[in-house]
């Protein structure tokens, strides 16, 4: 290796400090919010005077918060299923297909990743106004699908490119219909890609706020939108509790993904 960490001498400590500071910069706001959500102060005083679960109780007792959480989950679940299905079909086309403009099409599929989300949000908002999809679950799902698909396609094209097509050919010569061979051999072999696609699609929708603000109506709000609108009206520690729950679901999913990836490898 070009750079050997053990042999860096004094640089080693400098690197460690930089790494530590970066990690703290990234993690501290989350820790801070989580701490505040258990604090007794109604004005979000830090450090909290004493500890309490009352903001979580308030969250669970308020049907508007629960509905927002349920809406988030519902939309994320539908987006996950559609994103994996569409992404899978698209990935087969992009990896196996032989047609002109394949690379251009692949780049096009990934543009929502680089495009400013707010531009996408304004465009979708204007378009959905015309066809009456604003404030509907369908509108939400379509908007989130647009930003979730690139992640899905990226992880599945990677998995599919790493899969030797000869293995599928072998299954076909064994007597399996090409579709059966894909379902019984190719999909299990690229299951890690499918799984990453599902997790990333879910998370993309779950904590997305920009598109959601444009798509939301007073009666249909996702959890991030509800946090945002509540924050604009009054500063209550319930927001901290809701944010903490949002983060917990995200971390849990990431951990699950890491565990599954480890399990698949061994």
């Amino acid at each position, binding site marked *: 290796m070009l750079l050997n960490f053990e042999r860096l001498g004094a640089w080693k400590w400098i690197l460690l400090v930089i790494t530590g500071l970066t990690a703290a910069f990234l993690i501290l706001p989350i820790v801070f919010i989580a701490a505040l959500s258990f604090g007794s102060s109604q004005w979000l005083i830090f450090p909290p005077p004493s500890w309490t679960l009352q903001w979580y109780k308030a969250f669970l007792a308020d049907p508007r918060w629960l509905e927002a959480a349920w809406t988030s989950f519902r939309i994320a679940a539908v987006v996950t299923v559609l994103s994996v299905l569409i992404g899978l079909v698209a990935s087969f086309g992009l990896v196996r297909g032989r047609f002109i403009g394949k690379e251009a099409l692949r780049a096009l599929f990934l543009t929502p990743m680089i495009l400013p989300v707010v531009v996408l949000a304004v465009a979708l908002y204007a378009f959905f106004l015309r066809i009456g999809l604003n404030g509907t679950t369908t509108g939400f799902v379509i908007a989130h699908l647009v930003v979730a698909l690139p992640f899905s396609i990226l992880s599945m094209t990677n998995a599919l490119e790493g899969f*030797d097509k*000869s*293995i599928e*050919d*072998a*299954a*076909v*010569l*064994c*007597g*399996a*219909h*090409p579709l*059966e*061979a894909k379902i*019984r*051999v190719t999909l*299990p*072999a690229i*299951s890690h890609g499918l799984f990453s696609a599902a997790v990333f699609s879910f998370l993309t929708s779950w904590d997305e706020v920009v598109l959601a603000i444009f798509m939301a109506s007073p009666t249909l709000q996702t959890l991030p939108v509800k946090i945002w609108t509540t924050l604009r009206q009054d500063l209550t520690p319930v927001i901290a509790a809701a944010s903490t729950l949002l983060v917990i679901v995200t971390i849990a999913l990431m951990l699950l993904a890491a565990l599954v990836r480890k399990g698949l490898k061994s």
Partner: protein
Amino acid sequence: MTEPFLQIRGLRKDYGIVNAVSDVNITVERGEFMTFLGPSGSGKSTTLYILAGFENPTAGDILLNGESLISTPSHKRNIGMVFQRYTLFPHLSVGENIAFPLKVRRWGKAAIDAKVQAMLRLVRLEGFEDRKPAQMSGGQQQRVALARALAYDPPVLLMDEPLSALDKKLREEIQHEIRRIHQETEVTILYVTHDQEEALRLSDRIAVFSKGVIDQIGTGPELYANPATRFVASFIGDSDFVTCEIVSARDGRADLSIGSGGAIAGVPVHGTAVDGGMAALMLRPERLSLSRISTGAGTTGLSARVNDITFLGSSIHVAASAPSGETLSVRLPFGHEAAAGLSRGDTVFIGFDPASAHVFCG
């Protein structure tokens, strides 16, 4: 008259304007081990892939027991295949891999279990059924692939360079296994390789592919003794070529002259010989004799200067240059008197039997 078992007729495959194979005609007997031998890009794999149904031919037909296979999709051809790369299903155990084609065919559980055990015995991997492919060596994986491809008793087994990913020692070991399994199962095998030694070791007959056409089909000894083209001569066994001039040619034999040397009479000639035209004389190193002086009248040969002497254990390899500058190799058995005291720069006479040489025109 009985129908030949497997017939490939006038097969042709074009990719756009590029021709991959053309005019491939092969008849294979039941139980035969036929090898497609040729360098990469010679069309041997393309022919195999058309047989497997992964490619559609541009023209031509494939008949199995007199019936055309062309319109049958791959999964209904009931053909077995072992691939160049490892193609075991990674998420399934060895036993499940072998059972896969049987499950697809809706066999009963008891029949599947019995067949899996029988196939494991055939490839000598009893007790390995619960292993995952990743836990097996490359050689073991190819043996499982062979067991899987033979589990449903296909009439034809295709093998696409199945040993090319293995090291030499393992390759020879599995070549033995393949021969034994061929004899035990009596399955018809079409085998693709670029390795002439492998082809000679395994095959009943060899089809030599070059630039998309078959140069010659025959047994190993036939190809070695009577190569139809210069390519076959250079691909099967060792050979050197010396430029010569055709003095006269008739009835498949030619009289030649090499440089300013004397005439050589009665060499088997291939291709269209034109009197006075240039041609290539093919000589096999092990068919040449070497002496210090011309053994006189009646011996055909040419004089050459020794360039290099290499000791190779059981044989001694002498490289010498002909007057034209072309290099000739002579292989002498160890201890041969002609090699004693031979040193670089010596002028020697290299003799051969005109009937064992070949001259290729065009």
